[in-house]
């Protein structure tokens, strides 16, 4: 068993999930079975293999606009625009932005007190 009850509780906390006792025991079983399965990745030697987080990591100059000659965020200059208000489209009016909120006043989302955890 790789994952313990304690791990499940810790990860649920990180993920902002509560989970019932039944859900926790189911999760313990499922996570262990899935992790056992994914362990087959360790059969592969990847010590000299670069990670691929995005398709553009390998094919960036092939249409995605990445400039491989540049460093850092400059590589992605194509995706930037002028930093102006309402750059690509108008900001949503408050009433539209708040329309789906479970609780709001005219200008703000309302939530329970943030002081107590």
């Amino acid at each position, binding site marked *: 068993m790789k994952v313990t009850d304690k791990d499940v509780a810790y990860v649920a906390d990180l993920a902002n999930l509560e989970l019932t006792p039944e859900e926790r025991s189911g*999760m313990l079983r499922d996570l262990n079975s899935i992790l056992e399965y994914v362990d087959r990745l360790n059969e592969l030697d990847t010590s000299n293999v670069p990670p*691929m987080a*995005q*398709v553009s990591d390998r094919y960036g100059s092939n249409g995605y606009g990445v400039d491989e000659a540049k460093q850092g965020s400059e590589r992605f200059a194509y995706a930037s625009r002028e930093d102006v208000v309402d750059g690509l489209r108008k900001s949503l009016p408050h009433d539209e*932005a708040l329309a789906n909120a479970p609780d709001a006043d005219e200008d703000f989302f309302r939530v329970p007190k943030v002081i107590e955890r």
Partner: protein
Amino acid sequence: MNLNSLTIAAARTAVQEQKTTALALAEAHYARIQKEDGQIGAYLTLSKERALEQADKIDRMAAEGKPLPPLGGVPVGIKDVMSTRGVRTTAGSKSLENYAPPYDCTAVARMEAAGAVVLGKLNCDEFAMGSSNENSAYRPVRNPRDLSRVPGGSSGGSAAAVAADMAVVTLGSDTGGSIRQPASFCGVVGLMPTYGRVSRYGLIAFASSLDHIGPLTKTVKDAAIVLRTIAGRDPMDATSADVPVPDYVAELEKPVHGKPVREMKVGVAKEYFGEGLDDEVRQSVEAAIDKLKGLGCEIVPVSLPHTPYAIPTYYLIATAEASANLARYDGVRYSRRAHRVKTLSEMYRRSRDEGFGAEVKRRIMLGTYALSAGYYDAYYLKAQKVRTLLTRDFDEAFRKVDAIVTPTSPTAAFRLGEKSNDPLAMYLADIYTVTADLAGIPGISIPCGETKEKLPIGLQILGKHFDESSILRLAYAYEQA
């Protein structure tokens, strides 16, 4: 004229020539939905007001003799993971039960700008996580070909609606096979374009480096028409590619990008024909390969040696990205909020507990674990490295061939409940589809026969980055032959 069995071109022409109206087409589809969808469950929400307004606009154009746009009057359905302004968008989740987005998904907006009439929103696995549509928080979708069986997933509603003539075409999304596998199970065409070919703006994110929008259709030509409509750079999605959009429809017969079918080299990888592949599926796919040979294609053995590592790689990367993407459902801005909570942190946890179903929680947990301190290198980083190896396999193969053909899924549609208690068995339904998502290459599934029980079988054709033209051409030639 049967208004429910038209292709895009036939529907548009009929409206243009005033042999029918966009309104009549929409109404015929709503009538069909009324009659059939009670037992299938493809639609979650109907957008009648919006549909009839658009139909009226198209009918006025036709009456004035103006040329209709390419999808003028064509009734379409949209998977419920794509935002539609003012029309409820649930992603198949209780957490978005009452969510009406304030903006439109780019792909939907482009469909409507091209004249399409959006009938409604289609059922799917919750947040597109699933391979059978049984993870919808609302109801499972049933396969129109056999109601005891699943339609596949996660775009099960999108595939079932096309198969049951409840839309001419639909949009789905594919993160690990979610367009192609249901297309295969329901006997329709499903196209996943290259990563970045179609903007993801307004698509409710599951795994951002793997999510693709694409069409499910009755014919290959319709898939080409829809792709031509929705493809192309969108400033609202930084990962959408700035690559010119070819005329995919013209390309079906007259190649500008790539070769004519008779000159194509088609790869067959033994790794896609191994253990777990159903015999009837194998026979149908082998017969399809023979047919391609008959069309003049040269069949070339290729090797994709890392294929057995695709599912574990996929489930680590997809869940890691999902765990981050789904953090936004906190009960503050638009998602379900639990009642009677005292503190903010209790509100987050209880709202998410109530809003998410079992599979979504499982994936959030796995993804959070894979990203957590001490495990990041062993799981997430390791998976990203294997993703490179899987992608290199394709690079190598595509040096020798123009396309690769495989079965879309190892089996035909399975029964409801058959795999729902075994997450791993369910994940393996995507074994032939996930690798293309990881590599970012395009793939299409087209019908290639039936089992003895009359269940559809799908042939998958994979292509090079941005070479949808070649796989569409090959699929079209197969379909027409």
